[in-house]
């Protein structure tokens, strides 16, 4: 400290300090100033732009898809032959638990969130989501949850109780490692990501639509995302209660699920499946939305029965809440409850049927172009039908007591999940890749990818129907020749076929990864409207500008973009569609009336700070060092209040005055002078 000596005697008139130059934020705050860069790693870590967050969600989800895929290959390698020795019993139990948990919580939900984050604002003509910083917080929470979940591999073994972690097998005496604690708290943190994402997207869809876009003029993908988010917003709190009770049981030895204290293990099953069943509709509805966007574009026909598809989506979402106990037909519910839930489960097959019929009728009479995206979409329609029908066979409760917990159920949900949401996601990748990255994925590699995946999928999961009906239970780390039989339908042959199929599937996915690398290195820039699309997100450049639309378009029709490109000039019922404008002209017309000032939300580091404190709290609880949790909670409160006191759009005082000398481009954000 520079101590200034004051002479003792006469009062010294402080010399008027020469006005020091105003200090720029980076000098005053250094690393803690508000981030404003738009390039480099800071642009990604502190971004609040829905497009950057969408791409980060997609990349992280794809990484976890590959991780879970490898886990699946290890499982199939262990079961390829009798008395398999690839994995020991304990490691096998961890492998299938983490395969299922990673696929559902760290691939399917975040991938749907990524696509939704990227596309919903573009499809409804908004410049960003309603709460941009919560959107960033959601992504970092998902990543923190994924890391905590997978940290268990290195700290004593992962969770080994199956993805629905039935009690009391998941309580401490039967699963002594910390795996289940990491599982519960990791998914708790990832659950926060889904809850905040859901609130964010619902408010965005309800409140930030372009002028003229009524709810019945919204694209179907946005409709399915809206239903999915409503399911999420009401399902996540139920699993949050279940995880809290599980953590209290494991870390603070409460007795919620231990039968010795008189508890009822079925309480966990109810709480889990009240979340679990809406969860599986959360996994598949986004892909229904994607297919409902892709099929019309490549059939050159609007979606057949738009209101029916929308209301059947809502019906699935609504009925999804009344069927959860069909997972528990053999768990000992009374006959009356089983009857109620069996009929409700059958009722849910009707709206699903409506969707399949409408997709087929959309293609009927169309002008089908079989690009890879179209192939994947049609693949979904076929494979999901098989999965849906095998689902109906065990909605019949008595025959479900023969099929539940066998490989027949494994076959069902893989046809529905892989055939449903994964094929849907891949259709989405191929369809929207030019919009997101500006280049089309190669169609040649795409075809290899599609056919290998379809063949691999049917070879892997088709035989599982047979294995299930031959009585092979789920989650068996080993099968022996004694119980496999010799006839045509013996377990030995079909287990081997299934394992080979799994590796073909893996090669198919490998083709997709090479396609990505190939496109980024040598792909030609995509045309503005490669597929002659129909919806609003295509009235932007590829990839869209930071603020999406220069002028928020006014919507007057469903499939607005198509209506701006084509006019029906035929008289009476004769129809004659004539192209009146190319995509470039439509875009130019919009850009001509660009807004002068556009205020975009500024990046902020508070979301990542608050998200980073959650794993600290979780580790403190798991290892019983509560001081660490308290410090983590203190930091979280600090982060939350720092966030609350930070204005959404940064005032000018946060920007360094543009240095005159280097003349570099000022921040790309248009700053109001």
């Amino acid at each position, binding site marked *: 400290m520079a101590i200034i000596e004051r002479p003792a005697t006469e009062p010294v008139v402080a010399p008027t300090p020469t006005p020091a130059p105003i200090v720029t934020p980076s000098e005053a705050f250094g690393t803690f100033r508000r981030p404003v860069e738009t390039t480099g790693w800071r642009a990604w870590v502190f971004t609040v732009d829905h497009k950057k967050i969408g791409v980060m969600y997609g990349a992280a989800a794809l990484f976890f898809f590959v991780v879970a895929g490898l886990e699946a290959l290890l499982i199939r390698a262990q079961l390829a032959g009798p008395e398999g020795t690839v994995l020991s019993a304990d490691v096998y139990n961890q492998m299938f638990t983490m395969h299922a948990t990673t696929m559902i919580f760290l691939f399917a939900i975040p991938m749907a969130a990524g696509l939704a984050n990227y596309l919903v604002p573009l499809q409804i*003509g908004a*410049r960003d989501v309603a709460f941009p910083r919560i959107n960033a917080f959601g992504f970092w929470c998902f990543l923190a949850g994924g890391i905590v979940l997978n940290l268990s591999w290195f700290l004593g073994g992962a969770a080994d109780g199956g993805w629905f972690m039935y009690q009391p097998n998941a309580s401490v005496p039967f699963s002594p490692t910390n795996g289940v604690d990491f599982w519960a708290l990791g998914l708790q943190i990832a659950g926060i990501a889904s809850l905040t994402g859901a609130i964010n997207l619902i408010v965005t869809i309800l409140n930030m639509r*372009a002028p003229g876009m009524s709810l019945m003029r919204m694209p179907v993908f946005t409709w399915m995302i*809206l239903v999915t988010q409503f399911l999420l917003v009401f399902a996540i709190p139920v699993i949050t209660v279940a995880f809290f009770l599980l953590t209290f049981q494991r870390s603070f030895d409460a007795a919620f699920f231990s039968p010795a204290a008189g508890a009822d293990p*079925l309480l966990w099953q109810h709480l889990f499946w009240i979340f679990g069943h809406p969860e599986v509709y959360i996994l598949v509805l986004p892909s229904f939305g994607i297919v409902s966007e892709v099929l019309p574009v490549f059939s050159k026909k609007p979606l057949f029965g738009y209101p029916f598809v929308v*209301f059947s989506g809502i019906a699935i979402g609504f009925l999804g809440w009344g069927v959860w106990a069909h997972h528990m037909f053999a768990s000992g519910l009374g006959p009356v409850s089983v009857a109620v839930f069996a009929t409700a489960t059958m009722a849910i097959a009707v709206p699903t049927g409506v969707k399949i019929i409408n997709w087929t009728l959309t293609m009927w009479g169309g002008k089908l172009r079989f690009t890879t995206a179209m192939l994947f979409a049609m693949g979904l329609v076929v494979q999901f039908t098989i999965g849906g029908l095998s689902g109906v066979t065990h909605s019949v409760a008595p025959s479900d007591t023969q099929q539940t917990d066998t490989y027949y159920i494994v076959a069902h949900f893989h046809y529905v999940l892989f055939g449903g949401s994964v094929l849907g996601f891949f259709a989405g990748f191929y369809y929207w890749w030019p919009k997101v990255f500006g280049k089309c994925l190669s169609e040649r590699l795409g075809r290899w990818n599609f056919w290998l995946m379809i063949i691999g999928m049917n070879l892997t999961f088709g035989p599982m129907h047979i294995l299930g009906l031959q009585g092979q239970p789920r989650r068996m780390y080993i099968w022996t020749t004694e119980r496999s039989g010799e006839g045509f339908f013996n377990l030995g042959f079909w287990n081997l076929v299934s394992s080979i199929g799994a590796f073909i599937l893996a090669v198919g996915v490998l083709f997709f990864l090479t396609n990505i690398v190939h496109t980024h290195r040598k792909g030609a820039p995509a045309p503005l409207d490669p597929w002659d699309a129909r919806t609003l997100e295509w009235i932007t450049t590829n990839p869209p500008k930071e603020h999406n639309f220069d002028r928020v378009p006014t919507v007057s029709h469903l499939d607005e973009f198509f209506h701006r490109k084509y006019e029906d000039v035929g008289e009476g019922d004769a129809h004659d569609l004539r192209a009146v404008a190319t995509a470039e002209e439509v875009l130019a017309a919009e850009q001509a009336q660009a807004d002068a000032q556009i205020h975009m939300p500024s990046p902020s580091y508070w979301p990542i700070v608050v998200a980073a404190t959650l794993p600290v709290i979780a580790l403190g609880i798991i290892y019983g060092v509560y001081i660490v949790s308290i410090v983590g909670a203190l930091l979280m409160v600090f982060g939350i209040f720092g966030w609350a006191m930070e204005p959404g759009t940064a005032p000018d005082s946060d920007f360094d005055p543009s240095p005159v000398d280097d003349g570099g481009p000022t921040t790309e954000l248009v700053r109001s002078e």
Partner: protein
Amino acid sequence: MSESTTLDETATGTDATAQHSPEPPDDGHAHGATDGQYIVIALILAVITAAEVSLSYMDVGPIFIPALLVMMAVKFVIVVSYFMHLKFDNRIFSFLFYSGLLLALGVYVLALATFEFFA
């Protein structure tokens, strides 16, 4: 979750983020009750609570639990409609809150029914 079509509204904003648009009249504060009425509502709530507690000391036979539940529901609706302004606000707020509430009620009552809780 069925979105009633009446939700789509007269979107007037010509420009999503027009500069310095006049502050739209915030709907919450235009009307609602005056302070005096709030105090009266609070007294009503206090009276109902007192009634509930005294009822639990008296032995009124089988109607005891239904009466308690009715009084609870009345207090609940009073606070939600008046103190939380739901009665005077846009119908979307009521839709969002009551869909969550009724869903919770339905799902958990059905779950407890499978435990033969009400038998």
